[in-house]
């Protein structure tokens, strides 16, 4: 049982060759591009959605922050599509691996912070001390703020990993419960199956929401630092 549960999270290999790179690159194939003004439906919808998300997300930034638009849009589309594709049966979701999420979170966070320290040193350093703190608390507060700054990338990565992994595990477990109950009592299996349905709906939502949250937080860090 234990072995079966976690095999879906192991690095996928095909005949001993790791194909993880192809799996990560695969979602990009699903987004068609075209030079035309008027295209087919899927391309129109894709254009419309990306425009919507772009406007929503980059509205708060200054022009300097908006140079990150491509990066953030690619980020949200990558995370959303890998999460959604991971809901299909027998698929591997890259975002369940902490390595990939750290690889996404640390460079982006570090880029935002270094930008802030380089161009607006005083503003960035002033974030360590909220306004109106009593003088005695200052040393402790600076230490706490530093820790909270350095925990940001970890939090980003672990949040995404934990959410998606937990969702997948839960679906797997409830599926196993349904399977086991099927031969014992069909009606209980039916109830469990309904729970599974509800959970799947939740998983779809979580997939999209996690992508949004990740990108939003990165953009927030960017906003602080530009």
């Amino acid at each position: 049982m234990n072995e079966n549960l976690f095999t879906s999270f192991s690095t996928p290999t095909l005949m001993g060759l790791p194909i993880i790179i192809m799996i990560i690159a695969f979602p990009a194939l699903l987004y068609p591009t075209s030079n035309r003004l008027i295209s087919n439906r899927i391309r129109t919808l894709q254009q419309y959605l990306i425009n919507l998300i772009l406007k929503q997300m980059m509205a708060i930034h200054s022009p300097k922050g908006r140079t990150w638009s491509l990066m953030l849009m690619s980020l949200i589309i990558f995370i959303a599509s890998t999460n959604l594709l991971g809901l299909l049966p027998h698929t591997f979701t890259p975002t369940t691996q902490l390595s990939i999420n750290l690889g996404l979170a640390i460079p982006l966070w570090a880029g935002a912070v270094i930008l802030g320290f380089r161009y607006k040193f005083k503003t960035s350093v002033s974030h360590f001390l909220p306004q109106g703190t009593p003088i005695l608390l200052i040393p402790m507060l600076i230490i706490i703020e530093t820790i909270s700054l350095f925990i940001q990338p970890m939090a980003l990565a672990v949040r995404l990993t934990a959410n998606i992994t937990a969702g997948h595990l839960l679906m797997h477990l409830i599926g196993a419960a349904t399977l086991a109950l099927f031969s014992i009592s069909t009606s209980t299996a039916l109830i469990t199956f309904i729970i599974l349905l509800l959970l799947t709906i939740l998983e779809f939502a979580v997939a999209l929401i996690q992508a949004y949250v990740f990108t939003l937080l990165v953009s927030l860090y960017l906003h602080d630092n530009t």
Partner: protein
Amino acid sequence: MLSRVVLSAAATEAPALKNAALLGPGALQTARIFHTGQPSLAPVPPLPEYGGKVRFGLIPEEFFQFLYPKTGVTGPYMLGTGLILYFLSKEIYVVTAEMFSSIATIGLLIYGIKKYGPSVAEFADKLNEDKLAKLEEAKQASIKSIQDAIDMEKAQQALVQKRHYLFDVQRNNIAMSLEVTYRERLHRVYREVKNRLDYHISVQNVARRKEQEHMISWVEKSVVQSISAQQERETIAKCIQDLQLLAKKAQAQPVM
């Protein structure tokens, strides 16, 4: 779907494959020669309006047509059922927990697509139509503005033909005002002359009257001088006599 991928791959690898035109729909695009020099972007080649027909959302119609001559209508369905049962019974597809979660996921997806598919497609079509309508509107507005400019130009040209009326009216006005001024001055001259003549006449009248009065007063003075005292006494006595006679006559009549 896979058959079309194979077709286009075949066309790219062997561009001289002329009998690609025989291989069903999509032939227009697969018969094109790829990667020969500069691709021209105009005229833009047409997109097919609808995708290939599929059954069960997965298996293209061409597969059913392919099997039809040998196995009839039920052939592909038998093949599918047999394959599924084979995979299940030989445990090539193992029934695990994943099966239930996959049933849940795929069932949910199919339900969502069946329920919201048409409305989403309509929305996408509307987006395209709005884009076209905006461009069409811009084109129409530009055409209309140019048409309005042409009409205005024509109207101006027509007006230029009628300009001589304006000039005639102005000419008439000026002539009339000249005439009026001339007559006014003529009248003034007449009045002035009459004034002077009236003056001379009244001077003459005054002189004549003065002469008359002077003569009358001279005549009266000389007549009064010529009446002597004796004549005056005689006249007064006669008047008294006449009056006495009248008084007597008057008494004779009765008083009313």
